């Protein structure tokens, strides 16, 4: 069994075997991250692919500070940001004004939302909101850092984030109304 250090050394030497083991060890969990940033699984796999190409190309730059996983996670997030920026040029933009900002007062009892449901909520977010929501709420970056990463104003990040949050709350409320009858779905991947 290889340790991460062995794998890193092997990857620096560009050994196929080491690259393969590294991929097999981390592809699942990294795809779980990519999935949140992508509109669908195909795009998530595209991000994963490009992210791994970057990882293999730049692994010599990995300083050894912090865990290898965090380093790779950062690369995946940056790759997702690259995809987002690339997509901005081609994709249809949902205008912010189009979103009805009906913020329900009561927060649905959320404890029973499955991961798949949450993922579908994230994926239904307009792309810009999705980036900011993921970076802030899940990844835990500061608005200042997000503004730098996405090349936007810090206030844009803040306001988009609060809109994203309102949007999500609304979606969750809808979701809980829809599935009232069939309660008790279990998260299958656990």
């Amino acid at each position, binding site marked *: 069994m290889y340790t991460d250090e062995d794998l890193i050394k092997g990857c620096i030497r560009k050994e*196929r075997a080491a*690259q*393969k083991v590294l*991929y097999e060890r981390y*592809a*699942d*969990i990294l*795809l*779980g*991250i990519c*999935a*949140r940033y992508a509109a669908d*699984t195909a795009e*998530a*796999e595209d991000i*994963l*692919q*490009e992210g*791994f*190409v970057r990882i*293999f*190309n730049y692994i010599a730059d990995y300083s050894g500070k912090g865990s290898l996983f965090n380093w790779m996670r950062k690369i995946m997030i940056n790759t997702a940001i690259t995809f987002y920026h690339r997509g901005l040029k081609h994709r249809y933009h949902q205008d912010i004004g189009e979103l009805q900002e009906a913020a329900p007062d009561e*927060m649905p009892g*959320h404890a029973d*939302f499955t*991961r798949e449901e*949450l993922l579908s909520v*994230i994926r239904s977010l307009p792309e810009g909101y999705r980036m900011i*929501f993921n970076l*802030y*709420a*899940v990844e*835990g970056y500061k608005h200042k850092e997000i503004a730098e990463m996405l090349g936007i104003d810090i206030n844009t990040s803040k306001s988009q984030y609060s809109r994203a*949050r309102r949007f*999500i*709350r609304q979606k*969750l409320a809808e979701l809980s109304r829809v599935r009232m009858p069939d309660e008790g779905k279990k998260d299958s*991947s656990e």
Partner: protein
Amino acid sequence: MRRNDDIEKLFRERFEGYRLKPSAGVWQRVMRQLRWQNFLRFSPRRFNIWYLSALMAVVAGGTWLLYGGDKKEQDLVLPAKEEVRPAPPKKNVAADTSVSGEQKQGKNFSAEEKGKLLPSKKGMNERSPNVKVQEKKEEEALSDDPRLLRDERQGQVAEEKQPAEDVEVRDMAAMGVGREPHASGRGSEAGDEMPVARFTLSPRRGCPPLEVHVTDHSEHAESRRWKVEPRGYEGDAREPVLRFREPGTYVVKLTVRARDGRVAHASDTVVVYEPPRASFDWSPQELTESNEPVTFFNTSLRAVRSFWSFGDGHTSLEEEPIHHFTEDGPFDVMLVVWSEQGCADTLVRKGLFQREDFYIRFPNAFIANPNGPTGGYYTEGALANDVFHPVWKGVATYHLQVFNRMGELVFESRDLHKGWDGYILDQMAAPGVYIWKATGTFTNGKPYVRFGNVTLIRKKQGRYN
């Protein structure tokens, strides 16, 4: 607020350690992309696009050499035996030159490629016996061609040995001229002319920012490509104007391409001199009542000549002049310096020696007299530093308070001429930092408030300055 936190917590917890199995094709795609990148990237050890293109160049050159001339002549695929006809030898010359063009391109690769290109050279050498055969079969007009062929090859070898950067434009032009007669000698049908790359630069050296005008003298050029290295203009304007801001040596390269695709190269260098940097300091910093002369210190870089203008109508060519201002400031003092190559730099410092009519300033340290309290009276303008007092002008009223770090008042004065000698009740205060505050009005009626801290330094008993 709580609810908002809930959303974040919900998502963070749900996606903690979330795994998703990628489909089987992703790994293959990663590998394919890596292989493709490696292929595009040059490395002497692996087969990659550079080797491939070198290989293709060799194959193409060889093919062209063997069949190209005949095909072109007839627009038909004719077997090699047709060489008996008078025309082909000319075409062989053309074929060889085209190879030379390709080899020059090969030069842009790296050292490894040169080795790879050798076969094509060999091919050419193998070719020469054929030319000789033809020569025998033909008459006087052709006797020239083999020699030219040889010259061509020699020139080319020489060029490969010597990097283009060192080649002066004049030399390149001469080479072009050398080729020309044989180009025009071969019957000037359109598209059969040797391209000649030749240009002049004006000026070729100078001070930044340097504007260099390019004059193109190329012949039979269908298109031209300019490249300035390092990090310079790249483009295909006919006669670009090049601007250089940074000092350094630049190589201007020109590649011209004739209608039939043959290319010729020329290059020349531009030297942009390192400019001087004007800089100066002076002492005393401000004009005092005693009106002593001001010494200017020249701290310029790479300067061999200086010119000073003091702003009061006087100038100097000295390197470090001493100037006596007879009027009150402010003055704009200017220094112009020239480098060995004649590049200039100018520095103007505006508003020097401005006289202030109302000010009060305090020092941030003093050394208490170790021999005993002095009473705090001081001589204005004296160098002694055993009393904490301000320098001032136009002060009408004054109130100074000094506190220790516990906030206790240790000294107080309403007399401008009486500062703090560092003693509290005949006992020297502890060395350290004290906080002071001064309030009052200037003679023009404006109030002032100043505060800060001052360090009391204690010297061992004995001498002090």
